[in-house]
């Protein structure tokens, strides 16, 4: 079946509209559907996250000094302005580049600015060790309260070892 609007392309969109109980049916092609704005298509949704983010961030652009609006990632060339328009980082290094702009943004999105979840084994850096020290300290505290000093001493040595490891890197 050909599109009932342009009469040229194959009709791929079947549109049923019910207005005040009156039903109309329309068979049109995708281009006509897009043109007449009948159906929200992916990619130009005004409520997409990217567009909302741009809305949130753009007022901040006004307060920019010239230098800040020139802020640009060395690796991928993404500027902070582009980031606020697209809502997407260009590469992993953009996070460091826009570092001092990120906390307010992340706070608004997540209510938090620090990762608490999984730490990868190989790429986790010192975070794994730091988390382990934190856990051992809490355990140490508990053992001291229980007057279990032998175990506490073991834990203290373990913490020292780990701290040396951190300091040595």
């Amino acid at each position, binding site marked *: *079946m050909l599109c009932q609007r342009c009469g040229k392309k*194959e*009709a*791929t*969109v*079947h549109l*049923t509209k019910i207005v005040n109980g009156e039903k109309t049916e329309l*068979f049109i092609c995708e281009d006509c559907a897009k043109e007449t704005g009948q159906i929200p298509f*992916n*990619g130009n949704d005004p409520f997409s*996250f*990217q567009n909302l*983010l741009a809305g949130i961030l753009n007022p901040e652009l006004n307060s920019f000094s010239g230098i800040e609006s020139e802020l640009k990632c060395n*690796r*991928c*060339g*993404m500027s902070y302005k582009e980031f606020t328009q*697209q*809502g*997407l*980082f*260009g*590469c*992993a290094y953009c*996070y460091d580049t826009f570092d001092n702009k*990120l906390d307010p*943004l*992340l706070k608004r*999105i*997540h*209510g*938090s*600015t*620090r*990762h*608490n*979840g*999984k*730490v*990868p*084994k*190989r*790429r*986790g*850096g*010192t*975070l794994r060790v*730091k988390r382990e020290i934190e856990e051992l300290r809490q355990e140490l505290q508990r053992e001291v309260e229980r007057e279990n000093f032998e175990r506490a001493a073991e834990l203290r040595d373990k913490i020292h070892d780990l701290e040396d490891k951190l300091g040595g890197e």
Partner: protein
Amino acid sequence: MSLRDIINKNLTHWVSGNGPDNDIVLSSRIRLARNLENVPYPNRASAEEKAAVSKSVIEAISQQNEIKLHYIDLADLPEVEREVLVEKHLISPIHAKEGMEKGVLLNDNETISVMINEEDHLRIQVLIPGLQLDKAWEIANNLDNLLEARLDFAFSENWGYLSACPTNVGTGLRASVMVHLPALNLTNNIGKVLGAVSQLRLAVRGLYGEGSESAGNIYQISNQITLGHTESDIIDNLKSVTTQIVSQERQARKLLLQEQEIEVKDRIKRSYGILKYAYRISSEEALKLLSNVKLGIDMGIIEDVDQGVLSELMVLIRPAHLQKIDGKELTAAERDIKRAELIQTRLNM
């Protein structure tokens, strides 16, 4: 080939399999966003860089024997086959659009899919039937570990796993469940329940449609926040909210039977009647009626149809599946007729 054969051949595990609370929770999904450290994100990478990402991910998969995945280059698939993957929820609609160097890794029963070069370099997804978020996390986490041993993922001590979009940073985890809530809708409680859910930092959307209106009464609930909480906190929160919603839906069903037995039975049997005898049907109407029939099956009002009918048909009646089953391109009007035929054959099985 019989319809049963066709269904078995085409259906993916979350549709054909069983899981806990499967009468209300159709599926559980875990998705992890991961990126390689030294390559720009897909929105900024060149074709060569994206090709290199695919290559290194495929290589990493081939270096281990624990999880068997096969790679599909989406450029090699005709549009209808890409849409079939979308309808099975194995890739996103955006990923199915034409573009450079996009691919997906799948296991045999399609519980695992890894999208390559979508918004992030990798999107690891595990999708299984029923309420099984812990199990889905276990599978996804294991695959993530296997990949991490071989690939340099972008990770920061402050912000965790770095993603293209700041809404995914941290854990990169999106956990979600798909739930069927007809009785909460019929008793006019759906707005209240969904409102409460969004207070708990969870997002709800109708699977087909917007806001609290959903054809087929099917909703997806997922965590909104990925940074600042542990993975198990995020999953436990979603799990406990889902468990409560399941018990509220069950209560609403009891209430319906007590207070509006005749109306409910009439609604269910009429829906069954239309589905059994309609000559053509739109997917929206079909979903609405199938939701009623499924409710009838779960409540013991319809006894000669099995429970899986809604999950099966909600996938099979969509455009790409209809065209795949028929083996040719169909116009929307033709699909409406084929859809009615398929539903009748399935209901009479």
